[in-house]
């Protein structure tokens, strides 16, 4: 039967090409809609999972302007201190930055590791760099994870004080627990010493540096975690970098008091609960998704109608051929099955093309942090959706042509003129 199917496809190249093009366009749109929709929800869940506190009681501070840049570091520190002094309230911020540890500058193993990890990124030319997330330890109270404020208390050793440092699991072979790492090349942290306290587990995640909510969470496998030093906490450059990455968790409605205090300190800001922020984000995104979905449905309907028309015309045009085949031993059932398989094969090919196109589209056009979510969604949920869609489309498209075919009288067919 397969030989007949491929032979029939070869002899009807134009029809095959038309169906292939229509199905591919429809499937690409359907895949993009499904992937965007599911990936968006996955991303939201991942961000929500990062918080251990209730989202309606967790707030994000967005600073719109500060009166004096030079003193803004001190102002931020005062504001956070004020918030942390309120009852049942915690405030903390973070910032990811590139740092150079003196002890790792000549470490070829470390450099080789980074060269591999940073290939094609901004850090490709600086393989001796380290990506460090500095943070207020208070932020750990509102985040999920195994680390707590106590884990980041300064360590006294041999009469010296070190700040604790947690390294990503990628660095296990390059350094050991207890190793001391110094930052000398940094204007702010010049001479600050850190001690490797432990390695982070494989599944350790942190908020993205550019936006903690709308960007996917990032893996800590190739990063370091360290608390802000005393200097960091009041340094204007460092604290300005935490804008948009300052969180509060509070049982009280602290929006007004925080805004008021901030104004006194020369900071204009907006406090939004994470739940409200996500809700608004979902709403904005849903409008785009609805438009995508509508487009996909329209294209699918158009494709289905075109395919039905093409198949009906084909079935009418091939009346004589069917009659001849029946006269020489083919059953009507075999002809119907051939038609079904032919359409199924075409749609599977179209589905494969659409899937490959979508895969490379996501792999090439997205920034790396989005790639994982989108490609994972494409290869799981969207793929299942595509298979269901192919089966559904084939069934719908074949209904009318098969009914036409089943009603034919073989003895009459063979006498049909071309």
């Amino acid at each position, binding site marked *: 039967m397969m*030989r*007949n199917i491929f*032979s029939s496809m070869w*002899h*009807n190249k134009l029809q095959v090409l038309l169906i292939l093009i229509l199905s591919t366009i429809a499937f690409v749109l359907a895949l993009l809609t499904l992937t965007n929709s599911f990936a968006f929800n996955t991303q939201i869940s991942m961000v929500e999972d990062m918080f251990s506190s209730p989202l309606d009681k967790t707030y994000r501070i967005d600073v719109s302007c500060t009166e004096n840049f030079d003193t803004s570091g001190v102002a931020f520190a005062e504001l956070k201190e004020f918030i942390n002094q309120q009852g049942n309230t915690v405030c903390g911020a973070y910032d990811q930055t590139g740092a150079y540890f003196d002890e790792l500058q000549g470490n070829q193993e470390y450099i080789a590791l980074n060269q591999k990890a940073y290939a094609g990124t901004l850090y490709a030319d600086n393989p001796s760099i380290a990506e460090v997330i500095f943070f207020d330890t208070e932020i750990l109270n509102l985040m999920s994870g195994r680390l707590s404020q106590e884990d980041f208390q300064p360590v006294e050793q041999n009469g010296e004080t070190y700040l604790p440092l947690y390294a990503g699991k990628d660095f296990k072979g390059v350094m050991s627990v207890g190793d001391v790492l110094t930052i000398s090349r940094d204007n702010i942290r010049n001479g600050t010493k850190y001690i490797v306290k432990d390695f982070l587990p494989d599944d350790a995640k942190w908020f993205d540096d550019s936006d903690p909510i709308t960007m996917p969470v990032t893996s800590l496998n190739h990063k370091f975690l360290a608390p802000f030093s005393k200097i960091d906490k009041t340094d204007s450059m460092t604290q300005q970098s935490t804008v948009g990455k300052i969180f509060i968790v509070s049982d009280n409605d602290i929006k007004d008091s925080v805004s008021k205090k901030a104004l006194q300190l020369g900071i204009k800001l907006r406090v939004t609960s994470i739940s409200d922020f996500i809700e608004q984000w979902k709403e904005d995104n849903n409008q785009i998704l609805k438009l995508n979905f509508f487009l996909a449905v329209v294209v699918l309907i158009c494709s289905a109608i075109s395919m039905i028309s093409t198949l009906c015309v084909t079935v009418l045009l091939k009346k*004589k*051929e069917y*009659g*001849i*085949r*029946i*006269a*020489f*031993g*083919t*059953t*009507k*059932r075999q002809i119907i099955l051939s038609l079904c398989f032919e359409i199924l094969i075409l749609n599977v090919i179209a589905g494969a093309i659409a899937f490959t196109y979508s895969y490379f589209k996501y792999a090439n056009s997205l920034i790396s942090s989005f790639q994982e979510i989108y490609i994972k969604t494409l290869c799981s949920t969207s793929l299942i959706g595509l298979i269901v869609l192919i089966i559904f489309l084939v069934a719908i498209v074949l209904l009318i042509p098969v009914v036409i075919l089943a009603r034919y*009288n*073989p*003895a009459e067919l*063979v*006498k049909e*003129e*071309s």
Partner: protein
Amino acid sequence: MIQLENISKIYKFDDVVTEALKDVSLIIENGEFVAIMGASGSGKSTLLNIIGCMDTATSGKYTLDNEVISELNSKELSKIRNKKVTFVFQNFALMEKYTAYENIELPLVNRKVPAGERHKRVLKVAQQLGIEGQLRKLPKQMSGGQQQRIALARALVSGADIILADEPTGALDHKTGIELMEILRNLNENGKTIILVTHDPAIAGYAKRIITISDGGICQ
């Protein structure tokens, strides 16, 4: 042996009932060359279609080589069409997008004969009929006579013992028509049963027995 007992065929189109065959009883022995003659609409093609299992009778019993055909399902009927009977049609009935070779091998493809074996059998039949040079051509690239030889090759390649020819010379010129009838006569002499539908007495003259049909019934 073909044995028809009280075969009737009734067509219904909305409220209009047409009796194409009325209580037809007929025996055709193996190796016979029979011509069925009759005017247009007399039921001769319907009779041929029933004998060839392309159509089923409304009532009556049809037996082919001791097998009751009227009791078979569509799958079993398709096997009969593939192995025991074969057709030559007036309009040649060739698949236009397929080459002569692909047209000829059709019954063997349906029978799932391996490609190598198919190739041998197609070539053998093509050589017998002198069309081995036409096998790569499409039907539209051939003359009427060549097309009818392709159609005949397709009928012969299956190895079926009964050849049903429905006005086989209807679309051919006189000379080519005679050539075809000579081929059919040779086939009959080699043991094939030929049942020929025609309205041309000269063509019917090649048969050893002539059955005349009129208004759905056999006259003689």
